[in-house]
């Protein structure tokens, strides 16, 4: 299609809006770097949450050893994970609007009715995660229903995102799609990469959740339990996730009887730690295999002309090679991490996996550049620098993150302390 349009000069007839008259506020390479960094962080939080939900459901169905501990740990981080995945999703969305605004806005309007659905779906998913958390102890309702619906909502959001981000690369499809449904009820299902792309970007979820289990496992092997609020597998499971939201109406917690099979006779702290690590390893490997397979499927669905342009990208080989190397190193580290109570190895595995995810993020953008090459180049957009604001942003980021790290360290130390409440 692109060849035909190029040959006939029909690109000029495409309804491609001009770049914003204000241009780029800093060189596009810096904008890309910010987008890559923040999108990687977003993917980490997304995969941690999504993988946690899937593993929680798996634990619920399969009831493995330490099922109670696992589900308590996995369930405990979901609301926080969701909150951060949304928050960390804001800057990449901001920077993609700066770099590719005229493409992104056009495709968003064309699938507008679906795109706006992301908002209620976010509220439903997040609300259900809180319902899952707040009613976990008090209510006999089947918690898995809340989580399953929340998971479906998140998958739907991912589907709409992939739809939009593939459609924005295909201006030749816009007019036809828009003319058929100006009310925005279209979807971009003609693009052959939509489904494999969705799988590729969701596949690392279990790996990141698995890394969370490895970290928790190392901690349990060293300390025995997460803190004074953690009853352990053998204790009564009535403490919630350690947050005050499990305290009922300010009074004493309603006691819930734990079935003997759930509570009594469970493994010790270090035993629980090893179980966590074993499941973390399994999740990581399954996820990595799924990512490789779906990635290969994704590549086979990319049109040959686009692949040809992609192959010419100077960054393709170094970034691709770095990605393979990082994931290989991460796999070795994950194997090694299951044999130790040290924090170092799972932390290093997490960092290398994050690096691997960053290479996927960069490859994703290289593919977009190749796809858009005949019709759009960022090099043609003027730069009107806003350096003062840029450095103000960087300063606020450094100070903000420092504040977060220092205070989080203090509070987490408080939470893990065995001393009685200071309040």
């Amino acid at each position, binding site marked *: 299609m692109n060849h035909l349009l190029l040959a006939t000069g029909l690109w000029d*007839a*495409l*309804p491609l*809006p001009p770049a*914003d008259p*204000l*241009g780029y*506020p800093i060189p596009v390479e810096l904008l890309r770097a*910010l987008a890559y960094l923040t999108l990687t962080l977003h993917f980490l939080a997304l995969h941690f949450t999504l993988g946690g939900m899937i593993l929680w459901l798996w634990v619920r169905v399969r009831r493995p050893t330490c099922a109670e501990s696992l589900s308590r740990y996995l369930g405990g981080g979901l609301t926080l994970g969701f*909150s951060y995945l949304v*928050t*960390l*999703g*804001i*800057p990449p*969305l*901001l920077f993609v*609007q*700066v770099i590719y*605004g005229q493409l*992104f*806005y*056009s495709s*968003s*309007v*064309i699938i*507008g*009715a679906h*795109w*706006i659905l*992301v*908002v209620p779906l*976010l*509220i439903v998913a997040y609300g259900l995660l*809180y319902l899952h958390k*707040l009613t976990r102890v008090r209510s006999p309702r089947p918690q898995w229903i809340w989580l399953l619906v929340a998971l479906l909502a998140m998958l739907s959001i991912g589907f709409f995102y992939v739809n939009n981000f593939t459609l924005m690369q295909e201006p030749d499809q816009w*007019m*036809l799609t*828009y003319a058929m449904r*100006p*009310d*925005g009820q279209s979807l971009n299902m003609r693009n052959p990469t939509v489904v494999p792309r969705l799988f590729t970007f969701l596949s690392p979820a279990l790996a990141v959740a698995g890394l969370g289990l490895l970290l928790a496992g190392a901690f349990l092997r060293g300390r025995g339990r997460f803190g004074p609020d953690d009853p352990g597998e053998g204790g009564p499971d009535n403490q919630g996730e*350690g*947050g*005050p*939201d499990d*305290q009922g109406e*300010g009074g004493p917690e309603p006691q819930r009887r734990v079935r003997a099979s759930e509570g009594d006779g469970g493994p010790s702290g270090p035993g629980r730690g090893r179980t966590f690590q074993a499941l973390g390893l399994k999740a990581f490997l399954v996820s990595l295999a799924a990512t490789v397979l779906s990635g290969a499927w994704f590549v086979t669905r990319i049109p040959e002309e686009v692949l040809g342009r992609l192959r010419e990208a100077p960054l393709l080989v170094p970034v691709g090679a770095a990605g393979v190397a990082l994931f290989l190193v991460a796999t070795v580290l994950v194997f090694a991490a299951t044999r130790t109570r040290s924090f170092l190895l799972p932390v290093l595995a997490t960092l290398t996996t994050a690096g691997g995810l960053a290479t996927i993020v960069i490859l994703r953008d290289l593919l977009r550049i190749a796809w858009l090459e005949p019709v759009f180049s960022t090099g043609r957009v003027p730069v009107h620098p806003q350096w003062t*604001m840029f450095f*103000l942003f960087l300063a606020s980021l450094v100070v*903000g993150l420092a*504040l*977060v790290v220092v205070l*989080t360290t203090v*509070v987490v130390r*408080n*939470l893990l302390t065995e001393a009685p*409440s*200071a*309040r």
Partner: protein
Amino acid sequence: MNYPVWDVPFLGAGMVVAIIAIIHVLISHFAIGGGALLFVAELWSDRQPDGERIREWLHKYATFFLVYTTVFGAMTGVGIWFSIQLASPEGTSLLIHQFVFAWAIEWVLFLVELTLLYLYYYGWRKNSRRLQVALAGLYFVIAWGSLFVINGILTFMLTPGGWTIENRDMAAGFFNPGYLPSLLIRTLVMFLVAGLGGLLVAARLEEEGGLKERIVVFCSRWVLPAALLLPGLSYWYWKTLPSNTARLMAAGATGLGGGRLEVMTLFAVAAGVAGTLLVLGSLLYQVRPRALGVAGAMALFVVAQIGFLGGEFARELARKPYVIYDTLYSNSLWKHKAAEAGYRQQPYLSLTRWDPDVVPLTPQHGEWAFRLQCASCHTRSGYRGIIPRTESWTPLSGFKWLETMDQQGVPPPFVGTAEDRAAISSYIQSLHGKNVGAAEILAEAQADGRRRSDGGETREVMP
């Protein structure tokens, strides 16, 4: 002009933005003011003999605060972004490109604010008193910082001050004439909403040792700054409005506008009445704290929501006919383009390129010209419906009205040829069930033009 128009039946894209924004604005004010209340209440509880019981109430407040502001507040905040890019991509693009790092700083503040809230809440049982007070205070400062930033972008849209598309003067646009009064108004309003949230949680307390009374009195005091200072600040804000906005709103108030913009005035009045009711209601509970029940506290919250609805709608409508005042019209027509000689007389669809190559003067021509030029503000029969607004139109009067529609003060100037106007007039007639072809309207207009010309009228209808 450069983007497709999201043609939402009945609601219109603008109403989608409004629904999300109105929910968000109340919660976002609560999310900041509530932080101040947490901080002050922490300190207050230390001075009370039954401080622990006050902190039990405060914990319930914090639970409500956390879930309400993060689930609904944060998500609808993201939702505003989604909706404005659909309703006005050109305007959103301008805002994003001009204020990208202001937005990025706001994100940093939000990230820190969120983390502080979690540290405060999840550390409830383990943090020292000093740390809890510090976390609550820091949360408020950072959250107010996010208001400091977003207020610049919001007020820029209505009063861009010395900023122009040519000078791109960020400081002039950010610290614009409306910035300071708006910041102060929003700061007072967020204290007010924080107090209302406190009343809502306090309403469920049991009567015991005067605890509920003291908490109700404590919360209702948060309304007082707004009660005392809002009238003066509102007047100050009013004085910063563009003259056209002030004139339209005043005209609506006195009925001189023929009811055309009554809706904006009505919204402004609704905000004022709601504010007065909130002050009176809170004062009542300050005098008689035992009278507070869940229904009363809920009613105050609903009134506050109506107040926000009125205030935000009035603010949005006040920008008409622009989305970025004096720069970009609400249908994404650039003012400087419209001012270029001959620009407005070009065939409209050739300028937008978002029509499926329709044949001139066919029904599709009118439909697509209406969609791309008018549907960003008007639906057919729903919100700002074009059908009820054109009940009295004849094919010819519609044709003529379009040419000078910007003189009404609200619509932007029309862009397009006589064929475009005839096609849209024909399309509007078809919405009323009347089949009048565009070519027929054009011929009638030409005949009318000749008649007027023969009769000595100097004004030419035809371009």
